[in-house]
């Protein structure tokens, strides 16, 4: 084995931290994004529950958060982080900005996926006497599922990138390891190793996403 200059336990810990940050924030972000994107679809000017105020509020909110680069967003909302998790630093503290970063991002991706659903499907649902909830649950979400899975995949990969920056507030993770030990201590083998690990992560996630997306599309 090559000497990477840090104990393996530290590398494993970093990987765990990255996975923890990615999956927790992904779970919360996805749930939030589903609700927001469905709301956008229903209330948009051509939607079945057309509502100018709700649409404008969500749409503008999403745009505002999406305008702020993650590294700035992270420090900007430190007071909020403190209120929510009781501390400004550490892996758990990083979850707050990660969720706030990923939820609007996924909302936009999901909105596109949902808007791709053939309008005729919604009409068929209405003709069957479906309620609004049933239209979303039994028609729109299943029909958009393949595309939604790809959106989650894209979002997950974006999140891995963001976790690297979360090292700035002491969140740890693979990205932080590469920066503090690899870059600042000029440990090239470690840097190289982390890059490989990240590439493998991304490849695996993308492959899993593609597989399930194709399956969800039903052909």
């Amino acid at each position, binding site marked *: 084995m090559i000497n990477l200059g840090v104990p393996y336990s530290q590398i494993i810990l970093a990987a765990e931290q990255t996975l923890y940050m990615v999956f927790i924030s992904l779970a919360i972000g996805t749930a939030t994004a589903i609700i927001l994107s469905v709301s956008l679809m229903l209330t948009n000017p051509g939607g079945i529950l057309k509502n100018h105020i709700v649409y404008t509020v969500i749409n503008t909110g999403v745009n505002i958060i999406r305008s702020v680069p993650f590294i700035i967003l992270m420090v900007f909302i430190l007071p909020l982080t403190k209120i929510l998790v009781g501390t400004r630093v550490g892996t758990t503290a990083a979850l707050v900005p990660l969720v706030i970063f990923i939820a609007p991002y996924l909302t936009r991706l999901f909105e596109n996926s949902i808007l791709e659903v*053939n309008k*005729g*499907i919604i*009409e*068929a649902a*209405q*003709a*069957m*006497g*479906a*309620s609004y909830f*049933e239209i979303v649950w*039994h*028609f729109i979400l*299943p*029909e958009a*599922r*393949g595309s939604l899975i790809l959106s989650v995949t894209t979002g997950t990969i974006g999140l891995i990138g963001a976790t690297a920056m979360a090292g700035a507030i002491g969140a740890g993770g693979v990205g932080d390891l590469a920066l503090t030990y690899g870059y600042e201590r000029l440990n090239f083998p470690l840097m190289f190793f982390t890059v490989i690990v990240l590439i493998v992560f991304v490849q695996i996630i993308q492959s899993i996403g593609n597989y399930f997306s194709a399956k*969800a*599309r*039903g*052909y």
Partner: protein
Amino acid sequence: MIKFVDISKIFTVKKQRIDALKHVSLEIRTGNIFGVIGFSGAGKSTLLRMVNALETPTNGHVEIDGKNINKLSFSELRKVRKDIGMIFQQFNLLNSKTVYENIAIPLILNHIDKNEIDRRISRLLKFVELSDKRNAYPAQLSGGQKQRVGIARALATDPSILLCDEATSALDPETTESILHLLRKVNQEFNITILIVTHEINVIQRICDQVAVMERGCIVETGSVLEVFSNPRQQMTRRFIRTVIPDKIPAIIQNKLKNDPRYYRIIKIRFLGNNAQNNILYHVNKNYSAETNILFASVNELQKTVLGIFIVQIIGDDLEIKKITDYISSHQIQWQEVRL
């Protein structure tokens, strides 16, 4: 009975006012197959979508079995909609679900238990002759098969009305024929009232009992298919009907007639139903001295009866011709003079 009471619908698109429907009143009797025909933009789809309130009228209202559906709350309206099946030109099946799952959706929405769903779907698949495609996805089906799934889905909740929005317009003629046959079966076996909108006159000819012709948001002509086809009053209706029941003298014969030096008149005779009357020409030839010459003839099956159209040249003087036309009239046979 479905009753449209003085329905108007105005759309405003980009600040432009579009009168999609103008004071439309119409009654569709229970158990009928009612066809609405018109070119695209005539307002026929808007009219159809009034029945399940996918469109609501700007003025007027729709009654189903005496109930004004435009006054219902959303939850009451949903109940009414569950009793109305609908099929579409583009089928509108969920591509992510199998044939079985597609047909199951309306049943799931009605909270029907799993075993009962299974039983009903097997029966429906048998009815639409797709039992072997139970687990196929829509992408693996042909257009006609997709429409059969659409029909099965629409029938799943035992509706009393079936709405067909250009249901055969995306299909080839042979498939159209099989779908029409299926719709007829739906009407006869389950006594479901069917409302069809289409721009294809052969659809009306093949299965409808009643027809309404629409043009620019108005119904210009309505009646039984037999009445309207045998005696179309509007130019618009004639244009449609001519494509399935030709009644024009072929161009070559028309040119020859122009060079005919003799004095003659041309009349168009329509026979409906009773074939025995076809021998009218025999009697004409036997009893009158004017010469007759058949320029065009067609015999068409319509609503299980026969519509015959003859165009006859009568060569002789005015007096003789008048005698013949009087003779035809006296037999209650419709005729009209044709001018080249």
